[in-house]
């Protein structure tokens, strides 16, 4: 798809999106089946070159939503279009336009960063030499010393692994980046570096970014628009300033979040 065509249509559109999981457990000899409604009727339009933050407590449906956008999960109902292409019908074309960073920095832990990045780049058809040069540049920008590239990932800290995960996603120059809690587990300095880098990527690469986070300061700093998800539904979707003025009563985004969800960010308890 040409860049002109990409500019005319939203980066991401979701219409009436639903996803329910079946949970099967054994109680004695009985098989008990229950259902979890992870995503319930979500509608969303994300214009190109914007950063959308998705805020929600644990288990609210953030990761499920991102997985469906990333072609890893099939919705029960509704549609997702990325740059005008349906993710189910044009899976391969969509995959060329997106990349994802998950909260878990998933790697072959015995392999070095260099080997892991070579594998990831190869899957996208990027020549190894070009990938390594780009990865080194990105990681230097994220203050990861070059020497760390040749150490097995299992010997790096979680924060260092997460920086390499971000480099892996950026290597493919995605038009839409799906960041699922990318700064969780990072120290304040690293968190700041990653946030700066996200802003730079948006500016330099004309990328559109969807980021889920628990960090209110991060959401306010990065996002043009914030959607608050609760029990699989968007309970609000507006610019940070509008959210604060409408729901925060002048006490900030966190207060708005509590009012909208009625619960703590890190709480795992579903309200009855």
């Amino acid at each position, binding site marked *: 798809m040409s860049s002109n065509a990409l500019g005319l249509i939203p980066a991401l559109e979701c219409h009436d999106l639903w996803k329910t*999981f*079946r949970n099967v457990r054994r109680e004695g000899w009985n098989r008990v089946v229950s259902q979890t409604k992870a995503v319930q009727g979500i509608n969303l339009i994300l214009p190109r070159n914007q950063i959308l933050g998705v805020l929600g407590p644990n288990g609210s449906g953030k*990761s*499920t939503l991102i*997985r469906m956008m*990333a*072609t*890893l*999960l*099939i919705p029960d109902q509704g549609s997702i279009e990325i740059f005008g292409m349906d993710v189910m019908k044009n899976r*391969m*074309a969509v*995959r*060329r336009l*997106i990349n*994802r960073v*998950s*909260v*878990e920095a*998933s*790697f*072959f*832990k*015995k*392999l070095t960063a260099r*080997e892991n990045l*070579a*594998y*990831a*780049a*190869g*899957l*996208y*058809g*990027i*020549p*190894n030499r070009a990938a390594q040069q780009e990865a080194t540049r990105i990681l230097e920008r994220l203050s990861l010393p070059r020497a760390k590239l040749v150490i*097995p990932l299992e010997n790096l800290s979680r924060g260092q692994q997460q920086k390499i995960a971000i480099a*892996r996603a950026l290597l493919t120059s995605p038009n839409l980046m799906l960041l*699922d809690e990318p700064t969780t587990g990072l120290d304040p300095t690293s968190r700041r570096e990653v946030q700066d880098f996200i802003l730079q990527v948006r500016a330099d690469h004309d990328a559109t970014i969807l980021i889920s986070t628990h960090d209110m300061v991060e959401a306010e700093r990065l996002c043009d628009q914030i959607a608050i998800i609760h029990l699989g539904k968007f309970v609000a979707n507006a610019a940070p300033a509008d959210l604060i003025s409408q729901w925060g009563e002048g006490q900030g985004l966190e207060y708005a979040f509590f009012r909208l969800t009625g619960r703590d960010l890190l709480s795992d308890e579903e309200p009855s």
Partner: protein
Amino acid sequence: MLVVEREARALGSIVRRNFHLIRRYLGWEVVFLFYNIINTLTIGLIGLSLPAAQRAHTVVYLAIGALLWNFLSILFQEIANAVSWERWEGTIEYSFMAPIHRLTYLFGVCTYAVLYGLLRTAVVLLAIMVFFHVSIAHADWWGALVVLGGSVLPFIGLGLMGAVLPLLSTERGAQATQIIQGVLLLVSGVYYPVSVLPVWLRWFSWASPATYTLEASRGAILNGRSIGSVTGISLELLLSGLVLVPLGLWIFTSAERWAMHRGTLKRNG
């Protein structure tokens, strides 16, 4: 960039990744190779318990079975392990959301498995030749290689079917592939002629590509049958591969779709 070039690069990166992993687990590779050699020698030694006139023939007969079984087991394990390993590390979502055809991914895994299986089997073969001092001067090694070449495709097809199991269950799936291996071991005449099987089991022998591979390999190595006489069997094996590979791919993609509905590709989160 051409689609073919991109897919070839992806395939190469999968093969390279797996060889990198071998390097990291080199100590364990030596342990497993040692076990393979011991296992094959143990089976070959059964032949030495027979009267002198039958010894050489039986040792080679058993050794061919053990070697081929060794190769098949590695092929199966590596294909199945590739999926279970990716699920264990959590990388499967990254590999599966890459813009490459699933066939490319699976062929990358299979290419590595074939190369690695051949490498390990060659080392075991060397150990057998040194240990038993059996004369197989009249063997038609080229014929045996033609048979093995023809067999690779159907075995890959079966491997793809086996790879579905770790996709369905991370914890038990890889172990469950041993069921397929066990059935093949029973019906394919690995250590005995299929004629000793009950009639109803021989139907399964007929369906197993390993039966034909073993029969033709033994014909070439033990009886020195010419390439020409085993080419027919090799072509039949190749044709069965042309059926089994698409079938295996269909089963795998169906299982992947099931996992994408159920949300079981991920380990957590």
